[in-house]
C-alpha cells in the first residue's frame, strides 16, 4: 500500500478500492450468515455464525479503523480488551458447565466407567 508521499507526518491513507472491497465482503458475509442460519446444523450453527462475525469484525477493525497502520501499542490495546473479555466469558461459562458434574469420592472415575451415561 503506497503511503502518500507528500503527507508530512507519514499518515497512512487507505485507497478507495480497498475500502470498497471490504464493504462488499462485509455485505456478502452478512448475506451468507443469514442464509446459513436457515439450515439446521445443531451445534455448528453458533460456531459458524461466530466465525463469520469475527471475520467481519476483524475486517472492519483492520481496514476501516486503520489498525493495520497503527503502532504496536494500539494493536496490543485491542488484543488486551478482547483477552479480558474472554476471561470474563470463559470462567463464568466454566462455572455453569461444570455445575452439574457430580462430585464423588473418586473424581478420576468418570460417569462412563460407572455405566451412568450411555
Amino acid at each position, binding site marked *: 500500500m503506497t503511503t502518500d508521499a507528500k503527507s508530512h507526518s507519514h499518515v497512512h491513507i487507505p485507497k478507495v478500492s480497498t475500502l470498497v472491497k471490504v464493504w462488499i465482503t462485509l455485505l456478502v458475509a452478512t448475506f451468507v450468515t443469514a442464509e446459513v442460519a436457515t439450515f439446521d446444523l445443531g451445534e455448528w450453527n453458533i460456531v459458524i455464525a461466530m466465525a463469520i462475525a469475527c471475520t467481519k469484525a476483524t475486517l472492519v477493525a483492520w481496514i476501516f479503523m486503520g489498525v493495520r497502520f497503527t503502532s504496536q*501499542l494500539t494493536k496490543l490495546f485491542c488484543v*488486551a*480488551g478482547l483477552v*479480558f473479555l474472554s*476471561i*470474563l466469558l470463559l*470462567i*463464568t461459562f*466454566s*462455572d*455453569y458447565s*461444570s*455445575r452439574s*458434574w457430580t*462430585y464423588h469420592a473418586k473424581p478420576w472415575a468418570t460417569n462412563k466407567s460407572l455405566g451412568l451415561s450411555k
Partner: protein
Amino acid sequence: MATTYPTTPEAAAEEPVNYLNVEHGWKSWLFTTDHKRIAMLYVFSITAMFMIGGTFAMLMRLHLTRPEGIFAPETYNRFFTMHGVIMVFFFLVPSIPATLGNFFLPIMIGAKDLAFPRVNLLSWYLYIFGAIFAIYVVAAGGVDTGWTFYAPYSTTYSNSYVLSAAVGVFVAGFSSITTGLNFIVTVHKMRAPGMTWMRLPLFVWANYATGLIQILGTPVVAIALVLVAVERVMHVGIFDPNVGGDPILFQHIFWFYSHPAVYIMILPGMGVISEVIACFARKRPFGYEFIAASSMGIAILSFVVWGHHMFITGQSVYTGIVFSFLSFFVAVPSAIKVFNWTATMYRGSVTFESPMLYAFGFIGLFTIGGLTGLFLSTMATDVPLHGTYFVVAHFHFVMVGGMLVAFLSGIHFWWPKMTGRMYSEAWARFAALMIFAGFNLTFLPQFVLGYLGMPRRYAAYPPEFQVLNVLSTAGASILGISLVIPLIYLTYAWKYGPKAGNNPWGAKGLEWEIQSPPTTFNFDDTPTVTEEAYNYGEEVEEQRVA
C-alpha cells in the same frame, strides 16, 4: 483557556506565582484544567464523602454496643449499606489516584499536564454528579441492599432507593474510568526525554497499573448495575429466579469488577509507600524492577480470582478450585512487595518523620490483612468464615490499615509540595500513633468475633458477643476522633504553617526539583532525565540527621 499572569513586580517578589495564586475566584476553580487544581478539588470532595461514610461507621458501631441494638434493624441495614457504598465507590476507589495521582503523576514524569485535561475535569464533575445522587439517597431514606446489591433482593424484594444508588455508583464509575484512561495515555505518551520505563518512580508504576484495572474492570460493574436497574423497573430480568434467571450470574459479573476494585484501592497506596520508604531510608528501593513488575502482575492476575467470594454460594466446586488456586497466585506479588520494602531499610539511614510512621503502620497492617486473606481463599476455612466478622476485619485491615494509612502517609509526605507549607510534626506523629492504636482496637476483636461465628450485617447478635463488640466500638471512637486531628493541623498549616522549601525531606524525584507549590505548567522547560530513579548517593546530610 489562556491563563493570565500577575504582572506587578512586588506581587511576584512577595509570593512567587504558583498554581494556587495565579488566578482567584470560583470560576478559576470550577473550570480549571490544571491537574493540580483538579487534584485539590478532589481532596475536598473526597474528605467530605469520607466524613459522611465515617459517620455511618460510627452510628453502626454505636448500634452494636447492645446485642439487640439501638436503632431499628431496617435503619441499621441502611447504615451499613450507605457506609459501604460511600466508602467504596466515593472514597476508596478514587482517593489516591484522583488526588495524589492527579497531582504528582504528570510532574513525576516531567509532563506539563495529563494527556486530556478537559477529560480530567469531566472526571471530577462525574464524581460530583455521582456524589449528589449518593447524598440524595442518604437524605431520602437510604438503600438497604448492602454495597454488593445482590439480586434478587436488590431487584425484587428491597423497597429502598436502589435505583438512585445504582445511578450514583454508575456515574462515579465513569469518573474512575476517565482517571484511569488519563493515566495510561499520559504515562505512555508524555514522559520527558530520558524518562524511560525503568526510571519511572514506583508511584507512577502503581498508578499506571491501577489505571489498567480501572479501564478493564469498571465497565463490567456499570453493566451489572444497569441490568439490576432495568430489572427493578421492568419487574422481570435475567437475575429473576421466577423466570429461570440465576442470581449467581449477578455475583459473577459484580465480583469480576469488585475484586480488581480492591486492587484499585490498594495499588496506589503501595506506590505511595514505596516512595515514602525510599525517601526516609535514603535508599533506592530494594528490587525496584520486582516491585514495578509485581504492580503489573497484581493488575493482571486480579481479574482471574473473583470466584473466591462465591465458594459456598452454589458456584460449582471445580470452578471454586480453579479460583482458589489463582487466589494464592495473586497473593505472591503482594508478598514480594512487603519483603522488598523491608529489605529497602537494610543498611539505609532511616528517620521517623510522620509519613514514615504511617509507612511502618501500613507494612504491619497490610501484612496482617494480606495473611488473613489466605484464610478466605483456602476453601475449607472459607466455609465457616464466609459472611462473618472475620471477612469484615480482613478487608478493613487492608482498606483502612492499608489504603487509608497510605493515603495519610502520601498526604503528609507531599503536603509541603502541594501547599508550600509545613505541618506540625509533633501533632502529626501523635495522630499517627492514635490512629494505629484506635484501628487495632477496633478490628482485632472482629477477627475473634468472626472465628466464633458472628455473621456480618447483623442488627442484633447473641449476647455472648457483646464484650468484643463493645471493645470494637471503643476502638472505633478512638479511630474516629484521631482521624479528625490531621484534618485540623493540615488546614491550619496551609494557612499559618511555616514556609516549606522546595525539598523539605531531601527526597529525590522530579517533583522535588520544582518550586512548591508548583507553577501552573510545573516546569519552565521540559526536564531531561539522565540518572535512574531514587538516586540517593552515599553522602551524609548533616541537617537531617541531627
